[in-house]
């Protein structure tokens, strides 16, 4: 039953992480290839994702699947154990709604809030807080967005619950705080404490200096401009 599963990713990428977590939740073994996305992308990556040229790429028996959300849906449909999307079409539509919200609004705005120059930061931060408030309402008293166990919304929200929290620590921002968003904060703690999540997240002590370096370079490049 030889099944070839490969992930082309980047260790610090929140998008790449989604694909890996999904495979781990399903208990699917895969080969991980770390791409040098800031330096030289491999020929294989460019072959498998010619349009966007990005990670993650999932390769299943030689066939490439790209874009993290497309990958997550594919993994769910291909490996039926430990489902992370609801079966009911309406509940599924609701999950997809929150996934889109996180991906298109919540995460990008939070990321921007960390990177924005001082004079623009307040406006973006206010917007980000509104989005966090809305995201918190989606939890609705549940432990995870998926209910008692991690669902696809949780997988996608890892970009907010973990990667953004690390970034804001560097920037001295306190957006996702326990007192402002107690439910969401608790969710991010519970999520990061799941054993499967804990062992697969890029370690904080490696991620912190990396993001610091990225931000410093960005600020440097923009100071020159």
């Amino acid at each position, binding site marked *: 039953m030889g099944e070839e599963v490969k992930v082309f990713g980047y260790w610090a990428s929140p998008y790449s992480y989604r694909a890996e977590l999904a495979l781990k939740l399903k208990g699917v073994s895969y080969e991980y290839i770390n791409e040098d996305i800031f330096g030289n992308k491999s020929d294989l990556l460019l072959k498998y994702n010619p*349009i966007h040229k990005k990670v993650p790429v999932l390769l*299943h028996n030689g*066939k490439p*699947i*790209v*874009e993290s*959300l*497309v*990958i997550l*849906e*594919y993994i769910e*449909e*291909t490996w039926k154990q430990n489902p992370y999307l609801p079966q009911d*079409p*309406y509940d*599924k*539509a609701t999950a*997809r*709604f929150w996934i*889109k*919200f996180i991906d298109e609004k919540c995460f990008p705005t939070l990321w921007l809030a960390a990177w924005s120059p001082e004079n623009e930061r307040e406006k973006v931060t206010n917007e980000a807080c509104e989005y966090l408030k*809305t995201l918190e309402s989606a939890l609705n008293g549940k432990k995870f967005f998926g209910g008692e166990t991690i669902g696809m919304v949780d997988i996608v929200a890892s970009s907010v619950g973990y990667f953004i929290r690390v970034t804001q620590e560097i920037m001295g921002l306190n957006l996702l705080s326990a007192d402002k968003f107690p439910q969401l904060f608790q969710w991010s703690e519970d999520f990061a404490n799941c054993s499967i999540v804990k062992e697969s997240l890029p370690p904080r002590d490696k991620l912190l200096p990396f993001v610091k370096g990225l931000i410093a370079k960005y600020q440097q490049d923009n100071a020159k401009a």
Partner: protein
Amino acid sequence: MAGELVLLDFWPSPFGMRSRIALAEKGIPYEYREEDLRNKSDLLLQMNPVHKKIPVLIHNGKPVCESVIQVQYIDEVWHDKAPLIPSDPYQRAVARFWVDFIDKKIYELGSKIWKTKGEEQANAKKEFIECLKLLEGELGDKTYFGGESLGYVDVALVPFYSWFYAYEKCGDFSIEAECPKMIAWVKRCMQKESVAKSLPDQEKVYEFILHLKKVFGIE
């Protein structure tokens, strides 16, 4: 049974058109309600409090927002009639990829074509054509993106055809000259009643764009 399904929509919205086509393809009756976007109804604000946007599909009183989510929902609930999304996971992933591509590129680039001038407009036109050519490549020799019948990618893309005339007039170019295969595909789609009845007249859309330009003070 029409009371069960309501579509809150706005006539020129390509996103609304997607759901109209999906419902028509499956022969599902529904109530169409036109929203005045300058004066949104209480129902719209209640059913889509997060984005306050159309289209919203209300099924048995419960809202489904976002056009791609609606089309998937419609396909899943009424799965026995005219399936739009492939059943094979890999084919589904390919279809989802292209719908994502259309969502990321076509609307935004099209908007730039009618909203901007000079270099910004020229760049938008160039990229717009490049994207259509990539889509032509994906279509290949198939009748539709979905193969022999209309599929998810067809439903996601064809609504933008109603805006092509407006793009061409504002951008002073011919989409057919650059992408004849795309227009040939459009014409095949337009022969289907579900598509022809869901798309507004191109001239009407162009008038609407001209009106918007005036309102926004765009020359």
